[in-house]
């Protein structure tokens, strides 16, 4: 019996392809002041990207001050005691670098890509604005108009984006993920210099940040530069635990409808309340990743094969799992109806595909394909060191260890068909969801 098992295991192992690791050459260390540092060497071109990830995002906005994390992100470009407004950006431009910043639910991130010999220079500037930001109303007030324009452009000019905000607001009954990252317009309009400085002093400190450096460098070079720059920044605060309000167990399927004369093409979107990588237990998050891929990732997915190709009632159908947040993940789907198909018909057909998956699970072939795509994706990912920096920063920011983040393909490899079916049964339950309907409306007769 034992001999037979050994014999049967051998060919199986031989057939199992090598599972790649993501950014296998990455390493990490911590400075005395608490700043975490990750280095991702990539020698292909003489350039380097630094990203500073603060463990603070829009979900940490005080109640009534939505948008302050993102507003502060803009204001971080307004200068310090030693480097007045515009000096940092002018210096980045002078050396031919690119820079930007972004805010998510859980993080605020500043990044520059520069010729490798200029890494120390931009580290010095970034370390300086970690502690020495100076703001006055002459800089703050026009920038508040800028973020209001940003909101008008991204959200208010686009009914689908407005509907997305309404879906999130309904999905999260208690947790701040229900508030838009950019903020609600009426609260953004009241944000002040003092709000920004209070937020800054609370969260911008080396012990609340992760530095990711990717490119033509090694760990030792980064360590020397980091100690000479960020290492000189004293701890400014002891960040409080990020205890956000938890969601109650959802009991009712919810639907929101936006009818607008600006809509010429109806569509629907849906989100389910699910765990994230940081909040999941066991292999649930990995199983949700595989589930999203099999259900609606690309033209080989079930929704595409059954609704777009087969029944021909949709022109597109897609599913995603965003598991990179701290407290909850987002399992979403969207679809556009084809021809005279109504959104109700389309939603019923989607529910049929999901019910079948919940009842009967997935096939071994589907699982094998998803795993193969993940293995290939890990190799393709090596082509973009900025992409790797982004991936590792996100993972570490939500509490994952570097080794665990690198082993992502192996974790997907461990997922079983039963894991996926169980995740579908538990989480793809309409009670956990909000469905958003985007519909045209005659200008004169709103519904």
């Amino acid at each position: 019996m034992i001999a037979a098992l050994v014999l049967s295991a051998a060919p199986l192992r031989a057939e199992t392809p090598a599972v790649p690791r993501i950014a296998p050459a990455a390493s990490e260390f911590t400075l005395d002041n608490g700043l975490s540092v990750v280095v991702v060497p990539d020698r292909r071109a003489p350039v380097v990207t630094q990203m500073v990830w603060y463990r603070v995002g829009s979900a940490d906005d005080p109640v009534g001050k939505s948008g302050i994390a993102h507003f502060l992100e803009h204001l971080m470009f307004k200068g310090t005691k030693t480097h007045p407004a515009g000096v940092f950006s002018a210096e980045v431009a002078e050396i031919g670098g690119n820079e930007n910043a972004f805010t998510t639910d859980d993080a605020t991130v500043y990044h520059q890509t520069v010729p490798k010999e200029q890494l120390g220079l931009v580290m010095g500037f970034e370390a300086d604005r970690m502690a020495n930001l100076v703001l006055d109303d002459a800089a703050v007030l026009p920038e508040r108009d800028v973020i209001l324009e940003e909101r008008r452009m991204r959200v208010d000019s686009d009914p689908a984006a407005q509907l997305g905000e309404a879906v999130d607001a309904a999905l999260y009954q208690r947790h701040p993920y229900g508030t838009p990252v950019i903020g609600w317009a009426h609260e953004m309009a009241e944000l002040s210099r003092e709000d920004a400085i209070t937020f800054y002093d609370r969260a911008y400190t080396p012990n609340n940040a992760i530095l990711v450096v990717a490119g033509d460098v090694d760990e030792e070079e980064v360590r020397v530069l980091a100690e000479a720059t960020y290492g000189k920044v004293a701890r400014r605060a002891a960040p409080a635990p990020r205890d956000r309000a938890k969601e109650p167990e959802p009991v009712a399927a919810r639907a929101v409808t936006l009818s607008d004369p600006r809509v010429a093409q109806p569509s629907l979107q849906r989100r389910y309340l699910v765990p994230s990588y940081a909040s999941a237990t066991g292999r649930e998050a990995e199983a949700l990743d595989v589930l999203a891929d099999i259900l609606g990732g690309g033209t080989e997915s079930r929704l595409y094969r059954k609704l777009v190709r087969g029944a021909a009632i949709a022109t597109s159908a897609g599913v995603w799992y965003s598991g990179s947040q701290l407290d909850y993940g987002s399992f979403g789907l969207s679809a556009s109806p084809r021809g005279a198909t109504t959104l109700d018909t389309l939603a019923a057909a989607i529910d049929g595909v999901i019910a079948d998956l919940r009842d009967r699970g997935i096939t071994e072939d589907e699982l094998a394909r998803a795993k193969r795509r993940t293995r290939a994706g890990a190799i393709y990912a090596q082509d973009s060191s900025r992409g790797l920096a982004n991936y590792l920063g996100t993972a570490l920011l939500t509490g994952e260890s570097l080794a665990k983040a690198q082993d992502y393909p192996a974790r997907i490899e461990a997922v079983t068909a039963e894991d996926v079916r169980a995740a579908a049964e538990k989480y793809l339950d309409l009670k956990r969801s909000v469905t958003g309907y985007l519909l045209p409306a005659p200008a004169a007769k709103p519904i």
Partner: protein
Amino acid sequence: MTAMFRSAAVRLAQHSLAVAAAAGFALFACAAQATTVERVVSPKGIEAWLVEEQAVPLVAMNFAFRGGAAQDPPEKPGVANLLSGMLDEGAGDLPSEAFQARLDDLSVELSFSAGREAFFGTLRTLVETRDEAFSLLKRAITVPRFDDEPLARMKDAVTTGIRAASTDPDSLASQALAAAMFPGHPYGRPIEGTERTVAAITRDDLELFRRAAFARSNLRIVVVGAIDAKTLGPLLDATFGDLPENPFLRPVPDVKPADAGLVEVAFSTPQAVIRFAGNGLERHDPDFMPAFVANHILGGAGFSSRLYAEVREKRGLAYSVGTGLATFDHAAAFFGGTATRADRGDEALTLIETEIRRLASEGPTEAELDQAKHYLIGSFALRFDTSSRIASQLLAFSLDGLGIDYVEHRNDLVAAVTIEDVRRAARRVFEAGPAVVVRVGPKPS
């Protein structure tokens, strides 16, 4: 189809947005100097530019046939675009579903797109699946099936996109700008076509376009990744060698942007979306590089342009503002745009026009010129960040008729630009101001 990889947060807001994407034309783009570009000529005489990079086991190929949507039948815009959606929907003995499944089995990424003047293809494959990836590409471009089911499905998908764009302020502005700049010319037609023209496109239209435009003499190829010249040559022959030598392209007349003035598109939206354009300089004009530098100072990328300072930084009128240069085979333009709250649209537009004329009459300061040159020279190398981007940058140079050694001396061209050059070029491009201004938004009261 696309390799699965964990995504970062989908909900985000950021400091700045790339202007090129917002403005509706591709900015003139640059590649980098550190790369060695090798000319590979296959046994059958097919040429490719190769950047061999063995560090990651993948191969990226970008290629283009000259002759894009401008080659659409005049009464049927949208043929090239629909063709780009149909080539991977079945070829040879593989119907749509089998073809797509095979790509997925191999984790090969294959896509096509129709530009104004070129039909683009991209292929990304791991080294271990390389030969079959190229073989699938060959079938897609030489024996596509154009079966009824995928054709109906793709037509409906394109139509859905057209309908959605018909109420999107940015799309409305870009289309109105193209139509006003180039009335009656192929450049003025929508690349996607209209609901009516897409409905009328047949299988024969697609096959006629393919036969007319897919040939060896109008083909440009760039390959980046883990492959050497000796291996690439025969692969080029196997993939593209059966195509005819020459295409049959319709002549496209030279054209200048029309003096159309202000075009108002009434649309109920909280912002005025503004796009403008005027005559530019063609790619081989000796003043092109000085004009490129002048444009950078006026409204180029980054946080240091005059428009960024005046419109955004000082007054908070907009999140995104910028300008760019566009070169076509038969036209040249400068263009730009912004989006601001509807009641301040006039103020923003006046400010932008003032800055355009001020640059034309006074030119930049020495300090501005210096900063711009430093940025443009230093940032050139940053265009190198992925195999796909290297390939697409080099392909753009190839299509512009710039030599294989352009990446090596491009920075010298920027360095050689003098203040007199920029003044002269700025006058030539910007003195007349925009010939067309499109404003999409609520009617000004």
